[in-house]
C-alpha cells in the first residue's frame, strides 16, 4: 500500500477498500517507527490528522470525494497551518502556533487531504543539506550518514521513506529539486506565481515558490491540481484559468526537442552523475526526442547573483521576527535595542544570521547600486538566455545537483561549497521558470541521481508529460531505500 500511487490510493479509498482513518493510522504507525531515525518531521499530531481522516471518510461515504480526499499528505513546516505549530525550522518560531491557514493548506483542506504532519527543513529554508534546522538534521533514507538535501529535506526524506503519500516543498534556489534528486524522488517547482505564497513564510519573495514532491510525475500532477491557482491575497499570484495538470501525461514524446546547455555539462559535475544523466538522455532519444545543443551564457553568474538578491530580500523579510509580538524573545535584556539583539542572536541560527548580514550589507547606502542593482540587471540577462534557448527547444535537461548526497557535516564549514550544490537549479528561480527533478539512476555510493527538466513558462503539463513517459519506460522512480 505504501507503494501505491496517489491515483491507486484514491481509487481504493473511493471504492471503500480502505478507509482514510486506516490509511492515516498506518502512516502514523510507520512514522512512529521510522521518524526517530530520519527526523523528517518536526510536528506530528495524530489526533488532528485522524480527525481530518474521519471527516474525509464521511465525504468518501457521501460520494463527494475529490482526487486526494482521504490521502495523507505531509506539509513542509514553512506553511502556516491553523492550530499547528509552524516553526520554519527555527528556534525563532519554536512556540508559534499559527492562527491561520496558508493558501496551499486551505487548498489541501478543501480537497479533503489529510495533513499528516509538518516536515523538517533548513532554518527559514536557508540551506542545501537540512543541517541548519533548529530541530536537527534530517537523514537521507538511502544512507542515514548522508544528508537529504535541502531546504525541503524533511519532505524529501518522508516521501522517499514512504512516511507520507506525497508532500509539499518550497523552492527558492533549488529547495525542491535538489533534495528530490538526493533522495531519489520527483519534485516540481512551478512557474513563479502559479502557487500562492500567502501563508508560506517568506525567504526571498521574488524567488520563493511552492511545489509538490512525490514518488512519480503522475502523483505530482494530481498534487498540482490542488496547489495551483489564483489567490487574491498574493499580489504576485497569476490570474490564469484552472488547468488539469494530468491532461498531457500520456502524450508520446515523438518530436520533443531537448536542449542541453553546454554550461551544465562543462565542469564541476561528478562523473557518476554525468553517466546517469547521459543514460537518461539516451533513453529520451529512444522515446523519440531529439537533442539540441544550447547555451545559457550567463548561467554561470547565477550563484553570485542569487547570493546578493536572496539575502537582500531575506534580510528584510526576517525583520518581523523581533521578539515583540510572537516567537522567541530573549529571557533577559536591558533595553529595547538589547531585546532585539539578544532575541535575534539567540533565535536565529548561524546560516540565517550570515544571510541577514549579507543582505543588510548589499542593501546599504553606497553598496546598493554595486550589488543589488547590478544583480537585478544580470538576473534579466539570465532570464533572457532562456528566452533565446526556448526558440530552439521545448525543454532543457541537465543534472539537478553536481553530486549525489554528501555526508552529514561534510560541507558544514564551507558555506561557498554548500552554495555551489545549487549551481544548476538557481538560474531557474532567477528566471521564474518551472523546473523539475526526477530520479534517473544511482551514483558511485549507490545514492540517487536526479535529472533536471526545465520548462518554459507555464509548461508544467508538458514537463509532467516528459517525466511521466520516462517513468513509464524506466523504474528508477519506484526504487525504495532498503534497510529502514
Amino acid at each position: 500500500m505504501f507503494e501505491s500511487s496517489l491515483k491507486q490510493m484514491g481509487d481504493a479509498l473511493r471504492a471503500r477498500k480502505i478507509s482514510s482513518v486506516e490509511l492515516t493510522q498506518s502512516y502514523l504507525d510507520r512514522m512512529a517507527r521510522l521518524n526517530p531515525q530520519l527526523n523528517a518531521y518536526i510536528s506530528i499530531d495524530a489526533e488532528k490528522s485522524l480527525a481530518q481522516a474521519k471527516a474525509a471518510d464521511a465525504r468518501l461515504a457521501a460520494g463527494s470525494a475529490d482526487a486526494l480526499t482521504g490521502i495523507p499528505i505531509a506539509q513542509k513546516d514553512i506553511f502556516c497551518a491553523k492550530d499547528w505549530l509552524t516553526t520554519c525550522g527555527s528556534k525563532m518560531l519554536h512556540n508559534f502556533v499559527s492562527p491561520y491557514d496558508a493558501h496551499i493548506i486551505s487548498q489541501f483542506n478543501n480537497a479533503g487531504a489529510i495533513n499528516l504532519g509538518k516536515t523538517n527543513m533548513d532554518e527559514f529554508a536557508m540551506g542545501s543539506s537540512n543541517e541548519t534546522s533548529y530541530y536537527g538534521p534530517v537523514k537521507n533514507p538511502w544512507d542515514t550518514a548522508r544528508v537529504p538535501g535541502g531546504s525541503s529535506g524533511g519532505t524529501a526524506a518522508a516521501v522517499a521513506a514512504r512516511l507520507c503519500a506525497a508532500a509539499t516543498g518550497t523552492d527558492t534556489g533549488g529547495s525542491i529539486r535538489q533534495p528530490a534528486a538526493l533522495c531519489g524522488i520527483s519534485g516540481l517547482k512551478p512557474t513563479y506565481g502559479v502557487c500562492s505564497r500567502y501563508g508560506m513564510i517568506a525567504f526571498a519573495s521574488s524567488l520563493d515558490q511552492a511545489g509538490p514532491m512525490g514518488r512519480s510525475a503522475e502523483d505530482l500532477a494530481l498534487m498540482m491540481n490542488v496547489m495551483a491557482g489564483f489567490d487574491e491575497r498574493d499580489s504576485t499570484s497569476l490570474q490564469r484559468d484552472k488547468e488539469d495538470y494530468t491532461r498531457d501525461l500520456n502524450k508520446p514524446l515523438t518530436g520533443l526537442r531537448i536542449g542541453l546547455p553546454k554550461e551544465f555539462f562543462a565542469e564541476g559535475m561528478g562523473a557518476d552523475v554525468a553517466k546517469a544523466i547521459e543514460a537518461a538522455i539516451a533513453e529520451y532519444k529512444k522515446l523519440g526526442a531529439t537533442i539540441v545543443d544550447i547555451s545559457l551564457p550567463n548561467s554561470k553568474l547565477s550563484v553570485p547573483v542569487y547570493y546578493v538578491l536572496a539575502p537582500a530580500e531575506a534580510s528584510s523579510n526576517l525583520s518581523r521576527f523581533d521578539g515583540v509580538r510572537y516567537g522567541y524573545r530573549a529571557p533577559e535584556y536591558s533595553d529595547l535595542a538589547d531585546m532585539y539583539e539578544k532575541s535575534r542572536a539567540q533565535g536565529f541560527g548561524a546560516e540565517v544570521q550570515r544571510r541577514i548580514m549579507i543582505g543588510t550589507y548589499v542593501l546599504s547606502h553606497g553598496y546598493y547600486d554595486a550589488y543589488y542593482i547590478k544583480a537585478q540587471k544580470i538576473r534579466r540577462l539570465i532570464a533572457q538566455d532562456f528566452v533565446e534557448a526556448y526558440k530552439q527547444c521545448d525543454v532543457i535537461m541537465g543534472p539537478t545537483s553536481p553530486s549525489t548526497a554528501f555526508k552529514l557535516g561534510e560541507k558544514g564549514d564551507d558555506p561557498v561549497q554548500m552554495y555551489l550544490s545549487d549551481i544548476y537549479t538557481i538560474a531557474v528561480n532567477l528566471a521564474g521558470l518551472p523546473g523539475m527533478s526526477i530520479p534517473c539512476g544511482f551514483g558511485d555510493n549507490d545514492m540517487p541521481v536526479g535529472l533536471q527538466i526545465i520548462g518554459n513558462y507555464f509548461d508544467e503539463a508538458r514537463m509532467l508529460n516528459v517525466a511521466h513517459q520516462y517513468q513509464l519506460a524506466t523504474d528508477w522512480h519506484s526504487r525504495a531505500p532498503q534497510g529502514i
Partner: protein
Amino acid sequence: MSWEIVIGLEVHVQLSTQSKIFCGASTAFGAEPNTQADAVSLALPGVLPVLNKGAVERAIKFGLATGAHIAPRSVFARKNYFYPDLPKGYQISQFELPVVGQGALTIQVPAQGKQPAYEKVVRLTRAHLEEDAGKSLHEDFHGMTGIDLNRAGTPLLEIVSEPDMRSAAEAVAYAKTLHTLVQWIGICDGNMQEGSFRCDANVSVHKPGTPFGTRREIKNLNSFRFLEQAINYEVQHQIAVLEDGGSIQQATVLFDPDTGETRVMRTKEDAHDYRYFPDPDLLPLEISEEWKQQVAATLPELPHTKQERYVRDLGLSAYDANVLTQSKGIAEYFEATAQACNQPKLAANWVINDVRRFMTEGAKDENGEPAASEVRDGVPGRDAIRVPAESLGKLISRITDSTISNAGAKKLFSALWTAQDTTNVDLLIEQMGLKQVSDSGAIEKIVDEIMAANTDKVAEYRSGKDKLFGFFVGQAMKASKGQANPAQLNEILKAKLAG
C-alpha cells in the same frame, strides 16, 4: 543684509479609505487597542500585502487637483528599520518612483501689519503612498511599553513641497490651503486632533544670494498654531547660533508646545540607513490614462477655480472669494444662497459675516469652547449651519423687496438659527411682526398724528431747529412699533414738516 528664511513642508495626509492600504482591516479611529489588527497588520509569518485601490484613487485625485504629473508606473519600496510599532520591521512606502510627481499649489498669504495680503505659488516636489505605523503607548504599563497596531497600515499620502516658503506665515498659509484642498476633494477628513493631517517642517536660514543653509527638520506638528510657533522658534534659534559664529548641524527636532522650544531628536550621525529596495511582494503600480480620466470625472470644482469664477461671474472681491472657499461646505452653501435670492454680493456678505459668526458661536459648548465635532481648526463643516441656504436666500429677498429692514433681518436670522421650523421664513416674519409698514397712507397718518400732538415742536422746527427732525423720526418709529419703512418715513416727514 538680513537673514532669509527657507521652509519646505512634508505633510502626511491620512487617506479616508474604510480599510487599510494593504489589507481589509478597518481604519476607524478610536477602537480598543489591537481590535483592528488582522494577520497582515500584525505581520504574522507568511502574510502578504494587497494594495487598496481606493488609496490609489485618492492619490490620483490629489495629483489631478494640483496639476501634478501622475506616474503611469510607480513602485512600492521597503523602508527598513526596527521599532516595536512597526510590525514588519519595514514600512511599505514609495521611494524612487512616487505615484504623484511635480505639481503646484497657489496660496493666499493674509495681510500682516503693513504688508498686504498676497498670492504665491508653492511647487510640490512629489506625493507618495505609504502605510502608517502603529502606536507605542508608554503610559499605564509600569515601565513597559504597550503596542497598539490599530493604526498600522493606515494609508497615508506624504506630500512634499519644494523649499519655496519664506516665512512661518507662508508655511501656515500653505498648510491651510493643503488642508482645505484634501478635504475639498474628499481624500482626507482633515481631523488634526486625530492625526489625519501632520506636518514636518524643514527649516533653514541663509543670506540672500548665498547657498541655502543647513536645515533642521521639525517633526510631527499637528496644529497650525504649533507649526507657526515651531518655525518661528527654530528660525530665531538658527539665526542666534549663526550670529554667534556657530554653525547649524543637520538634525531632526521635536517641538515642545509647553516650552515653545524645539529639541534635537537625532542628528545626521545617527540617521538611519533605511536600505530602501523595491518591495518584491507588490507589483509596480500602473495607472492607465483611462483610470485617470475615471477619477478626474469624480473631482469637484476646485477652490481656486471657484474663486476665479466668483470674481469673474459674480462680481465678488478676491478677498470675499477666498473667504468663501475656505471649505467646500461654505462654498456650496454660499452658492445655494446666491441662487435662491439671485443677489450674490448680499449672499456673500451674509455668509461671510453672519453665517460664519453664528457657526463658530453656535458651535460652542457649555464652557464656551468650540465643539470639536463641528469646528475643526476653524473650518466648520456645513452641518454646523442651522439655517438652510434657501431660507437665507428668502431672507435676503425680503430685504431687497423692502418687506423687512436690515435690523429686522438680523433679528430674523438669529431667530431662524434656533427655530424648530427653519424653512417658513415668511411665517416667522409675520409672527415676529417684522414686516415694515410701506403703505404711505398709513405712514402719513402716523406723521399727521404726531405733528398734531406736537404743534410746538413743529413750530420750532419750522423756525430753523433742524435737529428736531430726529425727534419726529423717533416718535413716528415708536408709534409704528418700529415697522415703518425708514426711507419712506424720512421722505414723508420731510415733506410734511416743510409744510
